[in-house]
């Protein structure tokens, strides 16, 4: 028998993550975004919404809203930070691990929060590609 988590889990967040949670830099609504994507986490019942403003295939601005826990807010904020200023192709290459690492790691049980913001990003980018399909430059990378 292995030692398992307690009923109300023993959670230890990194200082970095907590700092992000307390002072997120990219949270809020956006007017006239190029794309908006929303994803829910069926496991815990959260919602995550991502706004991207894209010009010439470059993410010039990004913002998010969260109906979720501290890890959700922190990972959302970090996801935005990691893709802001990047090209769409660069953003498409972002990995979940990079998000978690940038926050000084995530408790295992909270990994799905990073997955949620990551999935929302993928969805937003796919939507952008779709809306551009045939009109502007073809997807690259």
């Amino acid at each position, binding site marked *: 028998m292995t030692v398992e*988590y*307690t*009923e*109300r*889990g023993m*959670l230890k967040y990194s200082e970095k993550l*907590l700092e992000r*949670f*307390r002072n*997120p830099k990219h*949270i*809020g609504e956006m007017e006239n975004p190029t794309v908006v994507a*929303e994803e829910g986490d069926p*496991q*815990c*019942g*959260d*919602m*995550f*919404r991502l706004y991207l403003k894209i010009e010439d295939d470059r993410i010039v601005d990004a913002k998010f*809203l*969260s*109906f*979720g*826990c*501290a*890890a*959700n*807010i922190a990972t959302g904020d970090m996801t935005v930070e990691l893709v802001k200023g990047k090209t769409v192709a660069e953003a498409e290459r972002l990995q979940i691990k990079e998000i978690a690492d940038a926050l000084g790691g995530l408790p295992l*049980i909270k990994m*799905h929060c990073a997955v949620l913001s990551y999935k929302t990003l993928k969805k937003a980018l796919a939507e952008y590609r779709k809306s551009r399909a045939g009109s502007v430059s073809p997807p690259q990378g």
Partner: protein
Amino acid sequence: MRVYLDNGTTTPVAPEVVEAMLPYFTEKFGHPVFPYSLGQEAADAVERAQEIIARSINARPEEVVFTSGATQANDMAIRGVAYANRNRGRHLITTKVENPSVLRVCERLEKEGFRVDYLPVDAEGFVDTAELEKRLSDETILVSVANVNDEIGTIEPVEEIGEILRERQRKIYFHVNAAAGYGRVEVDVKKIGADLVSLSAHKIHGPKGVGALYVAEGTPIEPVYFGYISLFNLRPGTENIPGIVGFGRAVELMMENFERDVAHMTRLRDRLISGFEEIPHTLINGPRGKKRSPANVSCSFKGLEGESMMLHLDLNGISVATGSACSTTKLEPSHVLTAIGLKAAVAHGTIRFTLSRYNTEEEIDYTLSVVPRVVEQLRRISPVKPEQL
């Protein structure tokens, strides 16, 4: 300002309790089994604590066994009585809103071949006693219901349940987990008609790691732990003497100030409730008034998530608990909130504020000034609008 509003989880130890305990660490450290003076001193201390606790619940001292807490008391009571009565039947009844320390034991017994019914509750958390009567059978040996729900503060009709069980021809044992109710409502084992009652010290300003089980004389119960027997057959191992002394002192203080403390907590509770009710899209979980624990306020602020709220309140110096799925390792909303019919998205924003005699009016003023601000702040960053829920 630091405001501790999570007294349902644990409480600060009263200074008087610490003082009473101290000599039992360094001077009166003896083992209670031997009749030399140091040992005698320890045995006497246990006896005194037994007397105090027995008096507080209208029992006799010999009917009180010390445990490591209410969790262990629940396990000892439920499994102990189930095993001792397995020849009379293998059916137990409890509720959907019990503490995990009851539910996990029942699930374990199911694996061992017992049958357990989990009674539903209504929207305020009251156990359905009609349903209880329906489920009672010739196989039923034990019913276990907490007198106060630890999450939403519902005071359960345990006296009525005791009455129902007493009217049966066949003896059905009644266990009451009083960990959340002790010190908040009267616990009288005779009035309730309880055969077993679990108590905890650390929820009434006593130390952690000590509790008690009341076992009415003549109750068939098998020990579930084995080993070196010191004072109690049911609970082997050397007693936590300083803890037991502290528990006794905490109960003394609790009984001395019971009415005053209950009135005080009730006043603060009702101030919190009326303050929170002014925040739009907010639900109070559990009943109002006399049928609610004086120490409990459970609130669902729609459109926000509880763990975030808990941590933001913490930034403002306020400690609370949450029923949000995000704060559990199973990522499921609290089973109590689910049982009273809350949608998962509403349970998501549930915060529990629990009071003690040490909370002050100023702390409530402060809390009422911080909470609406944090609620607004979190709703502003949420993609889910409260009116959609």
